[in-house]
């Protein structure tokens, strides 16, 4: 593994604003560094700001204060739609907790969509999507719509979609939440494989079982990072 820094936060703050103007501070000065090829789990109490943090990494919303470097690029200040769309499309693969699939598109169309936005021709797209779904045991569910799939199957469609454009970084928000423990462990094996391919994986999770697969855990409490070099292995 090379030791290049992929993601770096410097004193990142994030507040939400309610309709009445009240400020809800969620992240209060986050410092963190994630290296290329690392598999990192983010844990912490509910409402502690894990999803908020992951969304900032995924460029799905802006931070309020501080610096966010993506490969030494200060991406936290970028508001340009074209650049952000490019990062979300090509650099990151985001797996949402609620899958967020298009209910009116079939599994294969859902998986192929990021490649459509990347400008890949139709045949090539569908071939790749088919291949990805097959590799996750979904060969006989290509033409099913999300409503016709089980939770675990929808999860796999979401994973395939995240991988469609060969992103360098996989961001997963509680990906095992909707899965039974067996499917959950299968998914962890898949993430482990990504990591071994040299990709970076950042996963929010509640379960220690899943977190065990990670190289290290970043622990969030009250909007700040604690013990982020804590090695899980040492505990077991």
């Amino acid at each position, binding site marked *: 593994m090379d030791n290049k820094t992929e993601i770096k936060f410097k004193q990142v703050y994030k507040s939400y604003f309610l309709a009445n103007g009240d400020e809800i501070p969620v992240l209060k000065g986050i410092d963190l560094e994630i290296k290329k090829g690392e598999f990192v789990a983010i844990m912490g109490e509910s409402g502690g700001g894990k999803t908020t943090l992951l*969304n900032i990494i*995924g460029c*799905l*919303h*802006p931070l309020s204060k501080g610096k966010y470097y993506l490969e030494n690029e200060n991406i936290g200040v970028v508001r340009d*739609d*074209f650049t952000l*769309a*490019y990062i*979300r*499309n*090509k650099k990151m693969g*985001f797996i*949402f907790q609620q899958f*967020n*699939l*298009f209910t*009116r*598109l079939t599994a294969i169309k859902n998986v192929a*969509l*990021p490649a*459509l*936005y*990347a*400008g890949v021709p*139709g045949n090539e797209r569908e071939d790749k999507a088919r291949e990805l779904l097959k590799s996750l045991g979904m060969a006989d569910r290509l033409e099913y719509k999300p409503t016709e799939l089980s939770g675990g199957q929808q999860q796999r469609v979401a994973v395939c*979609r995240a991988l469609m*454009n060969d992103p360098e970084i996989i961001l997963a928000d509680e990906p095992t939440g909707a899965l039974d423990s067996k499917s959950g462990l299968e998914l962890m094996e898949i993430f482990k494989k990504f990591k071994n391919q040299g990709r970076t994986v950042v996963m929010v999770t509640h379960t220690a079982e899943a977190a065990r697969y990670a190289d290290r855990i970043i622990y969030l409490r009250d909007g700040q990072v604690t013990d982020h070099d804590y090695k899980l292995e040492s505990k077991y």
Partner: protein
Amino acid sequence: MIWEIIKMSFESLLAKKTRSFLSMLGIIIGVSTVIAVFAIGQGAQNAVDEQFEGLSANSIIVMGIKGKQNIGSTKLKTADAEVLLEEAGHITVAVGSIQGNSTVAHSPESGSFTIVGTTPGFFDVSNLELVSGRIFTEEEINNKAKVAVLGNGAVEALFPNGGEIVGATITIAGKKAEVIGYLEELGTSMGPGKQDDSIIVPNTTAETSYLGTGGFVMLNIQVDSVDNMELATAELISILREEHGLKSGQEDDFKIMDAGSMVGAAQDAASLMSLLLTAIAAITLLVSGIGIMNVMFVTVAERTKEIGISKAIGGKRGDILSQFLLESVVLSMIGGIIGVIIGNSVIFAFRNTELITLAPSLIGIVIGFGFSVLVGVFFGFYPALKASRLDPVDALRSE
């Protein structure tokens, strides 16, 4: 890429059939209603045009009416027509007629009819065509012959069982008259009296035997060219004033109406109606526009979430907007086309009923289609435009 987006738009419209149908419904109703409203306006306009079709712009009608309230006596007589024809320079045709109501009988039928005393030229001027028989001659006028030509309505009333009409004897105001011919049905009526119910007799006979001095005199004048209307009118007035022995300062004892001002008055009425219908159309458009808007806004949350997903997986604003724009355009266009078809079917179905006159109007189609499609596209597209400006997380949050 564009082709892919078009395909996706169609797929998503087909996947949400009920939603698509509801969105289109407002547009369909809007377009078809506006087309129908404009068809009513066009129908009224056509009716006016048709009514004045036979009336050329170079006609003048002189009526035996004195002053505004028709007080005092008039010296206008049918013979004035001949004087005008002889003395005035630009007048090519002048036909005098005297009209009044009288009891007409052909035992056992009888009733009150309009008696028109006139000269043979009247048949030409009024576009009257004979079904059978003949019209009266100059000689019969000079002889004050008791002959009559019946209008179609008069034939139906007096000869309900048919039989020999030409050659039959009827009584007008108690005096005998021989039927020498009868006319084709006119349908529409122009000028005073319903001409279908008229009985046309020589002017001399009407003046001496049937109507006496109680008739209403009218002269139908034609001027050689529209350009000479003013000149001819001035000349006509001075000749008639002299003929009637009016001193300067005395009021005319006749009234002049030219075709231009009559058509103008009818056109004014028709355009007032158009204005009213346009107001109705505007209200219809407003109401259907609100309907379209409501349906479109109902789907905003759903669309906003989809836009959130699209953005999160790397859709650029342009990609997302072109997809939603296309979807709105396709939806609105299909709705608009269905509306045009329904609107025109309604016009076609009611075209020949007596209930209402409808005529297809291109403006109606253009305005109805144009506005509804615009509203549909705007309210389909505007929420998408707003949603595309949100951060993906905020767009995804809307449920």
